[in-house]
C-alpha cells in the first residue's frame, strides 16, 4: 500500500464521515439530544481533519478545525444546538463536503462562503447566537471534571519472611569511578527524581536516561539513600533519584524535552552550571553513563569498545543493577500478587473471553469489497443462470419423458442457481439513504436561493435497492427536488395568503412494492397549474389547440420533450433540462414515472424502479416470428381474446372489452414494424399491462412461450438505443431476445409513433 492508496481510502472515509455528519446534524435538528449523536458528529469532523492533516490539505484542515471547535462547544454543553445554530452547522457541513471534493478532484470552492461560515462558526464558539435577537449567550455549563483515573493501586506485598528468607541489606555504593571526559559546550546539572506515577504510566527511568545521554556527554550518579530494606520495600514505589551533569552544545530546552512525557510525574531540575563549580561541588561520585545495554543486541563495535575500556564494564553493571533493582522489585510484587490472584484472574480471563466473544457477535461484522469484484461475480452468476437454462432446455429436448434423475438434478440446480443469484444481488443492495441525504442539502440550498422555507421529510431511507440503481437515481431525483422547491412550493407570503403553513414540506418516500422500489416525491405546494400547462403545450406545438385532454393527461404533459412551465429560466431548475429528461433517465433504468396533482394541495411524483438492473422476470412471447421478453412486473393478466370482445374504433383503433370495460388493443408487431398489417386478435394472446399513467392496455402478441428469469444485457452499451426496446437477453437456447419497453410501446400506440428510421425492420 502506498500513500496514494491511503489517500484514496481517506476520501472514501470522508464520504462516510460527511454522511454521518449530516445525518447527525439532521437528528439534532429534529430535537435529538443524545450525547452520542453529538459525539458522532464531532468525531466525523475530527476524523476528516486528522486525515486531511496527514495529507497536507491545509484548507480542509483549517475549516474542519474551526468547525470542530464550535462542535466541541456543543459537545461540552457550552452551546445549545438550537435551530439557528444547526442551520449554520448544516451549511458548514455542505462547505466541508465541497472542500473535500475540491481536495479530491481539484477545482475551487466558494471562498467568500467559506470565510463567511468561518466567521459564523467562530461567533458561535464565542457564545454569540446567530440571530442578533438580544438574548444573552448561554452561560457555559459547568463542565464535569474529567474523571480522575486512579493510578493502578499497588498491592501490599506479602511478607516473604515465612519462607525463612533472611533480609540482607544491599546498597548501590561502590560502583566504578571514572574521570569525566572533557568536551566542548556548557554543562547542565540535572536532578531527576521520578515518582511512582512515572512507572505506573509505562515510563521508564532507564529509557529517559538513555535519551538524555544522546543530548550530550554525561556523568551520572544514582542516589539510593531512600531505598528501604527489602522487607519494608514497596515494589511499586520509586526510591531512586539521579543527579546528572550533561555537557552539551544544546540548550536547556533540549534537555527538558527528553523528560517531556515524564515531567508531571517526576521532580526535575535543570540548571546551567559552569564547569569549575560542578567539579568541586559534586557530592556524589559521578558515573559515566553508557546505556548501550538497553539495546537488544549490542553491536560488535560496542563490544569492542567494552573490551578496550574494561572500566566501561563497571558502568554497564551499575546501570544494569539499577535496572534490575526496579525489575526485581516489580517482579517480587507481581509474584506475590499473582499467587494471591491466580484464581480470580483465571475467572476474570474466562469472563473477559466470554465478553469478547459476545461483543464480537453483537457488533455488525462487515467486510469491504472492491465493487469490481462484486460486479464480476454478478456477471458470472448471470452467465451461470443462462448456462443453467441452456442445459435444462437441451436436457428437456433430449429426454422428453422427464423422469430421469438428470431432471431431478437439474431442478435442484435451477433452485440453487436462483438462490445464488438472489444472494449475490443482496450483496449489491444498498439503502437509498445516501441519496436521500444528498437531497436534503439540495433542498436547503435551493430554498435559500429562492427565499422559501422548506422542510424535507424522508421516509423509508433504509429501503434497499441495487447500487447501480441508487447511483443512477441521484440525478433525476436532484432535478425533481429542484423543480419541487423552485416551482412546486409557493413563496411564504403566497402560502400564508392561501392559509397554509409558510413553511412548505417536501416528502421523499421509498418503499418496496411487488418486487420494485417505489419512490414518491410529494410537495404541499400549489399543484400543477393546468391552464398554464395546457397553454404552454399548445404554444410549443405539443398538442393541438382544440385537443380534449383529461386532467391526468394535462399533468403528464410536463414530461413531454421541450416543455417547461417556468416563464423565466431560473438558475435553479432551468438548466435546459426538463422533466422529459428526468423521465427518460428513469425509463433508462427500467422504471416508470407518473404525476398526480391536486390544485392548491400539491403534486406527487411517483417513480417505480426495478430493484436490480441485472436480472428481470419476464414472459417470453412470440411476435411475428420474433422472440420477445415482456417484463413480468408490467403484466396484469393474460387472456385469449374472443372475436365478440373485439371492437373496432375509428380507422385503425381497436378495443377489447374485458369485464365490462374497454381497453385499447395494441398490436406489438405493428408498433415495432415487424409487420405492416394488423394481426387477427383472435389468433393471438392479449397481455393486459398497466402503463405508467395508470391506464390499462392490451398488448397483442402471437403466442406465449413461457415465463423465466432473464439476465439483462444492455442494448445501449452493446449496440444503440432502439425505441420500444428496453434491453436484450440471451435465452436458454443461446438465442438473443429483445426485452420490450412496455411504456414506449404503449406510448407509440397512442399515436406518438416510434421514429420510423429507428424502428426495427428485423432482428436476428
Amino acid at each position: 500500500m502506498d500513500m496514494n492508496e491511503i489517500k484514496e481510502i481517506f476520501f472514501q472515509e470522508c464520504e462516510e464521515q460527511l454522511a454521518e455528519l449530516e445525518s447527525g446534524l439532521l437528528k439534532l435538528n429534529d430535537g435529538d439530544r443524545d450525547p452520542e449523536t453529538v459525539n458522532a458528529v464531532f468525531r466525523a469532523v475530527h476524523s476528516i481533519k486528522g486525515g486531511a492533516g496527514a495529507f497536507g490539505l491545509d484548507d480542509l484542515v483549517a475549516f474542519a478545525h474551526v468547525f470542530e471547535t464550535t462542535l466541541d462547544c456543543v459537545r461540552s454543553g457550552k452551546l445549545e444546538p438550537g435551530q439557528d445554530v444547526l442551520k449554520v452547522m448544516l451549511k458548514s457541513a455542505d462547505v466541508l463536503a465541497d472542500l473535500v471534493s475540491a481536495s479530491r478532484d481539484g477545482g475551487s470552492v466558494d471562498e467568500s462562503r467559506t470565510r463567511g461560515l468561518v466567521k459564523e462558526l467562530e461567533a458561535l464558539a464565542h457564545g454569540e447566537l446567530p440571530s442578533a435577537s438580544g438574548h444573552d449567550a448561554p452561560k457555559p455549563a459547568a463542565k464535569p471534571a474529567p474523571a480522575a483515573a486512579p493510578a493502578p493501586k499497588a498491592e501490599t506485598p506479602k511478607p516473604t519472611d515465612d519462607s525463612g528468607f533472611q533480609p540482607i541489606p544491599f546498597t548501590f555504593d561502590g560502583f566504578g569511578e571514572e574521570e569525566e571526559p572533557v568536551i566542548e559546550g556548557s554543562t547542565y546539572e540535572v536532578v531527576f527524581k521520578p515518582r511512582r506515577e512515572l512507572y505506573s504510566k509505562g515510563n521508564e527511568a532507564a529509557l529517559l536516561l538513555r535519551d538524555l545521554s544522546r543530548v550530550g556527554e554525561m556523568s551520572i550518579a544514582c542516589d539510593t539513600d531512600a531505598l528501604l530494606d527489602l522487607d519494608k520495600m514497596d515494589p511499586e514505589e520509586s526510591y531512586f533519584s539521579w543527579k546528572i551533569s550533561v555537557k552539551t552544545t544544546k540548550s536547556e530546552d533540549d534537555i527538558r524535552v527528553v523528560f517531556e512525557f515524564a515531567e508531571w510525574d517526576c521532580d526535575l531540575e535543570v540548571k546551567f552550571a559552569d564547569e569549575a563549580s560542578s567539579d568541586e561541588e559534586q557530592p556524589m561520585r559521578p558515573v559515566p553513563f553508557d546505556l548501550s545495554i538497553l539495546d537488544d543486541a549490542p553491536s560488535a563495535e560496542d563490544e569492542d569498545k567494552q573490551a578496550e575500556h574494561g572500566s566501561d564494564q563497571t558502568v554497564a553493571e551499575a546501570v544494569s543493577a539499577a535496572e534490575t533493582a526496579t525489575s526485581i522489585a516489580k517482579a517480587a510484587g507481581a509474584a506475590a500478587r499473582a499467587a494471591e490472584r491466580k484464581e480470580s484472574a483465571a475467572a476474570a480471563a474466562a469472563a473477559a473471553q466470554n465478553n469478547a466473544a459476545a461483543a464480537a457477535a453483537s457488533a455488525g461484522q462487515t467486510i469491504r469489497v472492491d465493487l469490481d469484484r462484486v460486479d464480476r461475480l454478478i456477471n458470472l452468476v448471470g452467465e451461470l443462470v443462462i448456462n443453467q437454462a441452456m442445459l435444462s432446455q437441451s436436457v428437456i429436448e433430449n429426454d422428453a419423458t422427464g423422469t430421469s434423475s438428470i431432471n431431478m438434478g437439474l431442478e435442484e440446480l435451477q433452485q440453487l442457481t436462483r438462490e445464488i443469484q438472489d444472494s449475490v444481488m443482496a450483496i449489491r443492495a444498498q439503502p437509498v439513504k445516501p441519496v436521500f441525504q444528498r437531497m436534503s442539502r439540495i433542498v436547503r440550498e435551493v430554498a435559500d436561493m429562492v427565499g422559501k422555507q422548506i422542510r424535507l421529510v424522508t421516509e423509508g431511507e433504509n429501503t434497499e435497492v441495487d447500487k447501480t440503481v441508487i447511483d443512477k437515481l441521484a440525478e433525476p431525483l436532484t432535478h425533481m427536488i429542484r423543480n419541487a422547491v423552485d416551482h412546486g412550493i409557493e413563496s411564504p407570503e403566497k402560502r400564508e395568503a392561501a392559509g397554509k403553513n409558510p413553511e412548505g414540506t417536501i416528502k421523499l418516500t421509498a418503499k418496496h412494492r411487488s418486487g420494485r422500489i417505489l419512490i414518491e416525491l410529494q410537495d404541499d405546494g400549489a399543484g400543477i397549474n393546468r391552464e398554464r400547462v395546457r397553454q404552454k403545450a399548445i404554444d410549443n406545438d405539443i398538442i393541438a389547440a382544440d385537443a380534449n385532454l383529461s386532467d391526468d393527461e394535462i399533468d403528464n404533459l410536463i414530461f413531454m420533450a421541450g416543455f417547461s412551465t417556468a416563464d423565466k429560466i431560473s438558475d435553479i431548475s432551468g438548466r435546459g433540462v426538463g422533466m422529459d429528461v428526468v423521465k427518460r433517465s428513469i425509463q433508462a433504468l427500467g422504471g416508470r414515472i407518473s404525476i398526480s396533482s391536486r390544485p392548491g394541495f400539491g403534486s406527487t411524483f411517483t417513480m417505480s424502479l426495478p430493484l436490480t438492473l441485472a436480472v428481470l422476470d419476464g414472459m417470453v412471447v412470440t411476435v411475428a416470428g420474433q422472440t420477445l421478453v415482456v417484463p413480468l412486473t408490467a403484466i396484469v393478466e393474460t387472456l385469449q381474446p374472443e372475436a365478440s370482445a373485439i371492437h373496432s374504433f375509428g380507422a385503425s383503433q381497436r378495443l377489447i372489452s374485458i369485464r365490462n370495460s374497454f381497453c385499447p388493443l395494441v398490436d406489438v408487431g405493428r408498433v415495432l414494424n415487424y409487420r405492416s398489417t394488423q394481426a387477427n386478435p383472435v389468433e393471438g394472446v392479449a397481455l393486459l399491462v398497466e402503463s405508467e399513467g395508470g391506464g390499462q392496455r392490451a398488448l397483442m402478441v402471437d403466442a406465449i412461450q413461457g415465463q423465466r428469469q432473464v439476465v439483462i444485457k444492455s442494448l445501449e452499451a452493446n449496440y444503440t438505443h432502439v425505441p420500444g426496446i428496453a434491453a436484450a437477453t440471451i435465452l436458454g437456447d443461446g438465442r438473443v431476445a429483445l426485452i420490450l419497453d412496455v411504456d414506449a410501446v404503449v406510448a407509440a400506440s397512442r399515436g406518438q409513433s416510434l421514429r420510423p428510421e429507428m424502428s426495427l425492420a428485423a432482428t436476428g
Partner: protein
Amino acid sequence: MKKKVLTVDDSRTIRNMLLVTLNNAGFETIQAEDGVEGLEVLEDANPDVIVTDINMPRLDGFGFIEGVRRNEKYRAVPILVLTTESDAEKKNRARQAGATGWIVKPFDPAKLIDAIERVTA
C-alpha cells in the same frame, strides 16, 4: 524479534498510515478500530507498545487506556496517544488515564518512530 505495536484508531486512513509507517520501520502491527476492540485484542496481541487515538466510538482513548492499565499484565506497557494538536487538556486527561506519552498529528514517520523508540527499550 520484531517489536509489536497495537494501533487503535477509528479512522481507516490513520490506521493505514500507521500500518505502513510501522511496517516500514520494522515493527509488527496489530490493529483495532476502537477502544472496545483494542481491549479485546490486547491479550492475543501482547504488544510491546500501544498507539491509540482519543476520539473513538464505543470506547474512547481515555477509557481504553484505563482499561489497559487495569489489566495486570499490561499495566506497564507504554501507551502513546495520538492528539491532533498540542491540546493541553486532552494530554492532561490522557496522562491521568495512564498514557505514557503522545504523538501530535499529523505525524511524520520519523516523529512516530522516534516517539515509539523513546518509550521502548
